[in-house]
């Protein structure tokens, strides 16, 4: 069996799986799975670029995804009336002052000679800078958050089309990745792991707590959509006529149609990224990356700037995750910082990459779709299994009750099991690197 045949079988299996799910549940839920599966596949492509092609261990995917989500709010939401005049400029000034403080401190560190005096000067710069920052920042934030707090209380966005947020989300993530990569790359691989784990938590903490930015845990909902609204479709005569011809209930048809529009958009993004990545990894650049991954010392000896190349790949991969994050928030129609959890947004993506086959873009896509399906379906399937296991027990027996209630937690266990089984028995994944 050639690799091509095998890949066709795999993807054919995914299609059959989706069709079967559609028949046994509903077409709406299958489209829901497919849409999130496509987003997951994009994330997996980004992580695969970092891990599969450069051997970089990034466990901060959640943070980059969340930055993409933040971008959606900042780009697509209408600006809040009066927020900018009330405190927006103050916040901006304060942030610039904060940046200037850090810049001065770095300048002092590099320009002055080592000694007590330097330490004192740097401390002075940092402390006074921080005090001034807070003096400007706090009242400005209060002013912004006081504006219509039940609905707004934040700066709002730029009121631009939401699709623009996707590349902007990538840029946001790239910026954060550059900062973290600059400090942690070139050190040991474990350090990058911890650093990315930390930055992700911090990004989430900022989005959760800085209400002036995106309302924090109060969530921003009602994001503009790139697809039409179901209600509009249901009132659209042309659409109703079309559904009449096809013999589908217009309400069902409208929900399916909207999801299809999203799916097509996502497939387009996935396809573009896939083609670009394929070309990149098959280019001399891609060969160099793999050479660095396989033997850093030798690559360095041949004059390759390993750290710079790593930074490049790290930023690119994170940007892809940022794009995926923006896509996801667009699909959700709201930004809910409280729902970002590392197990779901970081480690699940890792399972996708490892299962699909690290170092292979097609594998990443397959892993994304397949594992996402499993992630969603484990709950109903687990419930079925539990029903079967407990069928012999009498109703109301404590163990039966406990098992039925806990079935939902089978998810994490299953993911861990799948990851370990693949690592053990097929360490190169379903579609290995050529």
């Amino acid at each position, binding site marked *: 069996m050639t690799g091509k045949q095998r890949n066709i079988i795999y993807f054919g299996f995914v299609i059959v799986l989706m069709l079967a799910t559609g028949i046994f549940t509903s077409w709406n839920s299958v489209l829901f799975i497919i849409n999130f599966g496509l987003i997951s596949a994009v994330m997996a492509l980004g992580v695969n670029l970092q891990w599969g092609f450069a*051997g970089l*261990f990034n*466990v901060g995917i959640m943070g980059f995804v969340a930055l993409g989500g933040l971008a959606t709010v900042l780009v697509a939401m209408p600006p809040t009336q009066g927020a900018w005049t009330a405190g927006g400029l103050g916040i901006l000034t304060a942030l610039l002052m904060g940046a200037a403080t850090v810049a001065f401190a770095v300048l002092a560190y590099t320009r002055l000679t080592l000694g007590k005096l330097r330490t004192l000067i740097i401390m002075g710069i940092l402390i006074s800078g*921080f005090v001034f920052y807070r003096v400007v920042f*706090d009242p400005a934030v209060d002013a912004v958050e006081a504006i219509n707090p039940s609905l707004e209380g934040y700066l709002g966005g730029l009121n631009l089309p939401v699709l623009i947020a996707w590349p902007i989300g990538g840029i946001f993530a790239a910026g954060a990745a550059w900062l973290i990569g600059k*400090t*942690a790359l070139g*050190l*040991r*691989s*474990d*350090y990058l*792991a*911890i*650093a990315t*784990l*930390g*930055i992700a*938590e*911090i990004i989430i*903490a900022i989005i*959760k*707590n800085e209400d002036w930015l995106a309302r924090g845990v109060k969530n921003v909902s009602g994001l503009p959509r790139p697809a039409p609204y179901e209600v509009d479709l249901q009132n659209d005569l042309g659409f109703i006529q079309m559904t009449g011809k096809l013999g589908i209930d217009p309400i069902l048809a409208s929900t399916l149609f909207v999801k299809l529009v999203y799916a097509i958009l996502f497939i387009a993004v996935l396809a573009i990224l896939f083609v670009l990545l394929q070309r990149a990894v098959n280019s001399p650049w891609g060969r160099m990356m793999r050479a660095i991954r396989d033997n850093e010392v030798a690559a360095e000896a041949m004059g390759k700037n390993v750290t710079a190349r790593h930074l490049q790949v790290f930023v690119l991969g994170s940007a892809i995750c940022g794009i995926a994050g923006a896509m996801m928030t667009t699909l959700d129609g709201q930004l809910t910082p409280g729902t970002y*959890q*590392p*197990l779901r947004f970081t*480690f699940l993506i*890792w*399972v996708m990459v*490892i299962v699909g086959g690290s170092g292979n873009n097609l594998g990443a896509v397959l892993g994304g779709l397949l594992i996402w399906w499993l992630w969603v379906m484990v709950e109903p399937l687990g419930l079925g299994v539990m029903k079967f296991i407990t069928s012999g027990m009498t109703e109301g027996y404590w163990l039966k009750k406990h098992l039925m*209630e*806990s079935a939902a*937690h*089978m*998810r*994490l*266990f*299953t*993911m*861990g*099991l799948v*990851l*370990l089984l693949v*690592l*053990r028995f097929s360490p190169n994944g379903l579609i290995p690197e050529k």
Partner: protein
Amino acid sequence: MDLLNALVALSNFVLIPAIAYGSQLALGALGVTLIYGILRFSNFAHGDTMAFGTMVTVLFTWWFQSKGITIGPLPTALLALPFGIMGCIILILATDRIIYRFYRVQKAKPVIFVIVSLGVMFIMNGIVRFVIGPNDQRFLDGERFIISVRNFKALTGLQEGLAIKTTQGLTVITAIIVVGVLFYFLNHTRTGKSMRAYSDNEDLALLSGINPDKVVIITWLIVATLATIAGVLYGLDKSFKPFTYFQLLLPIFAAAIVGGLGNPIGAIAGGFTIAFSEVTITYAWKKVAIYVLPEGLKPDGLVQLLSTDYKFAVSFAILLIVLLFKPTGLFSGKSV
């Protein structure tokens, strides 16, 4: 008098909580650092190992409580702790036998071990959630305070109160005992020294006839014990919630790296560094400031440097500073 009041407030809100939290982090970081030193990988499942050991302890505590078995003013969890440790040891040895050993024999790269530990993390997390659920569980009983605020005020006549929770006292005492025993073991017993030798220079240790399998098993035993104790102390002091334990991974790793990965003394120093920074930076200093500062300078705000939601940011910032200026940590760890 004002200075005394300030000191009491400082102890009550900063020093005592930070010492307790630092002890918990130190015990956690010791586990991480031992695994790193001996088995040579960063164990991402450590937080969930702590959660598992704590969960077993919680279950035994509940069972004891339902049978009416308590130990007076002390929390019943202490009685259940040995069972929790036992449960954790069984799980972790099984994990090593079924999962990690395969990769050890293969001499897999450290990063593979890290990814494997991700899988283990998922499974342990799943087990804990499956058995006890994802919610907050309380299992503390017995006397709540060693000194309560009211007693302290009555005793000293000071305006500020000082409370020492039983759990805080227990944490510090247990941590001192555990660390003492651990260091005695590592520095003064044959087996402990052979562990250090193995961590220091694997090839030479093999050449000296040190049995690697034995070293690995003993390491896991110690790690399981440390993890369970750290987890139970944290759970008694705060509360037991599986997700919180997963999140503890970050400050624990920060502590281990800040101290120098693979260095046990460093892990303790790192634990306290992280704990004190977190608490001092996220504490609202107003209470202390009103006693110390002259009348005219009394602060209006809370004088809080960062909101408590940013405590992870603090551990992380310290981690970054250390990585930038001293990548091997305060006490030089290994740089593999």
